[in-house]
């Protein structure tokens, strides 16, 4: 079966700095793939390459068998890849509902249809009480939910989540885990960047580990957790941090 997403030999250099180095990765339809690695490992750069925000220096990206390398972000979104931003980028002066409606217009050009779809998603994301307030009035957790809601409204087949749980309380991130599971139940494939280890290990079918721009492991969570290279590059750091 054709993988939903296939990244082949992808590299990105910024001047002399290599942010992503020869990364190859495949996602099967319906999979949740976790993407972990220390800060600066190139996780967000990889997202920017897949979503079209950056053009790769080398390599190819195939989505459902179709080459999407170098396409602009709006085209890639229209093909069915949506993303959230690590630092939430709400349309601050628009209401929560209006924010989500922007995404919904992609598949529902009629304003009534777009609004109905947006209301549905706002309700599902638990944002109903804030539906009509400006997005700037939301808390961090609210903004993260809004990021997710907007991306979902575009009707994606593949969703890229960039640290949606960062800065949330344990309860909030548990709620998020449930949300992400629910999204997968609907048949949406997910690529998830996360630093919250408990969440990512319980969510993911497989976990990919980036280190200095290179992929050092792609395995089921329990295998990754025992991988000495991963422990040295990333998890060890985490343990030390939690012990401190």
């Amino acid at each position: 079966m054709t993988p939903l997403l296939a990244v082949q030999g992808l590299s990105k250099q910024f001047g002399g700095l290599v942010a992503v180095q020869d990364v190859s990765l495949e996602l099967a339809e319906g999979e949740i793939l976790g993407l972990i690695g220390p800060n600066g490992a190139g996780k967000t750069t990889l997202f920017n390459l897949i979503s079209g925000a950056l053009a790769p220096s080398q390599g190819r990206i195939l989505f459902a068998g179709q080459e999407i390398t170098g396409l602009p972000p709006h085209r890639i979104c229209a093909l069915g890849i949506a993303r959230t931003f690590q630092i939430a980028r709400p349309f601050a002066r628009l209401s929560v509902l209006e924010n989500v409606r922007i995404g919904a217009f992609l598949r529902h050009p009629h304003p009534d249809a777009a609004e109905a779809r947006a209301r549905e998603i706002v309700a599902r994301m638990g944002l109903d009480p804030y539906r009509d307030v400006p997005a700037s009035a939301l808390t961090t957790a609210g903004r993260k939910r809004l990021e997710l809601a907007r991306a979902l409204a575009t009707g994606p087949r593949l969703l890229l989540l960039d640290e949606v749980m960062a800065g949330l309380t344990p309860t909030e991130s548990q709620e998020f885990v449930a949300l992400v599971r629910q999204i997968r139940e609907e048949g949406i494939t997910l690529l998830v960047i996360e630093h919250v280890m408990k969440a990512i290990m319980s969510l993911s079918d497989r976990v990919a580990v980036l280190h200095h721009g290179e992929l050092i492991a792609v395995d089921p969570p329990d295998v990754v957790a025992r991988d000495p290279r991963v422990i040295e590059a990333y998890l060890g750091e985490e343990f030390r941090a939690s012990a401190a």
Partner: protein
Amino acid sequence: MNHRQRLLQDYARLAAVALPLLAVPFLVDPFLVSLAILTLYWAYLGNAWNIMGGYAGQFSFGHAMFYGIGAYTSTMLLLRFQVSPWLGMLAGAGLAALFGAGAGYLLFRFGVRGHFFALGTFALAEMLRLIAAETEFINRSIGVHIPLIRGDSWWRLQFERTQGNYYFVILGLFVLGMAVTIGLHRSHLGAYFQAIRENEEAAAALGVDVLRYKVYAVALSAALTAMGGSFFAQYFLFIDPTLAFGVSVSVQILLRPIVGGVGTVWGPLVGALLLTPLAELTRAFVRTPPPSLEFLRGRSGVDVMIYGALLILVILFIPDGLVGAGRRLWGRLSPGPRGGRRPS
């Protein structure tokens, strides 16, 4: 409420504002009619600017470029080819839209944003002014007179006897411009414009073709602005490069929507209702000041100083303009279930 109902409600509001205005020329003296003409004229231009500068957030400091294209196009078509100014107005709108789309595409394509974009529009307007001042075909910096005709002619868009007809023309244009903005405000186009204003990267990530919609915003704003330029030429019956492409035109156009409320449907009208009479009163005041202020007699530019002061005050204290401030006040006074904070 669904989309159609909201649209109808907005158009009903517009009709409720516009219909009583039809009576103005029959009720007041000629001075007040000319003041009303100017007020609607600036409201119309402010509304055109607001589509690009307010909704799409692409701040133009050079709207005179579109205005001047409109003014010169209809005028030259009339003088050289006897084309009715109504058709000239449409031709000017088309030409300005093309020019705006081309200029906008180049600026956006190469990532000119924010202050630099505003400077770019300013430079383009100045460029057109200098070109106009050196072009023989349009009589260089001397300018062009539209010859007076006797009596009134709707076809020639010139009214010697019935000044009030100009009022109906600008009222019609104003209603047209407002109808465009209302339609925009309620459509996905307007929503996309606002998303682009708020955050371009996020808009692109949600499937919005940012470059394309920015160009649409400029073209639409340019076309409407050019029609205002054609109206001015027919009303004033004279244009020159400074009247058409000058900096003061650009500044005047953006002043009212900023004071009234950027990116709101009614902001430009509110701004025009406040500023236009203020400017005219100031001019009249300076012409015949009271004895204690004798030193002001005949000084020009006092109105411009008042504009400047007002602009500073508005930007400092109510960046969302009078309409925005009014809405917040209303929200505080009528605490509904959602505190009346719904931005619409």
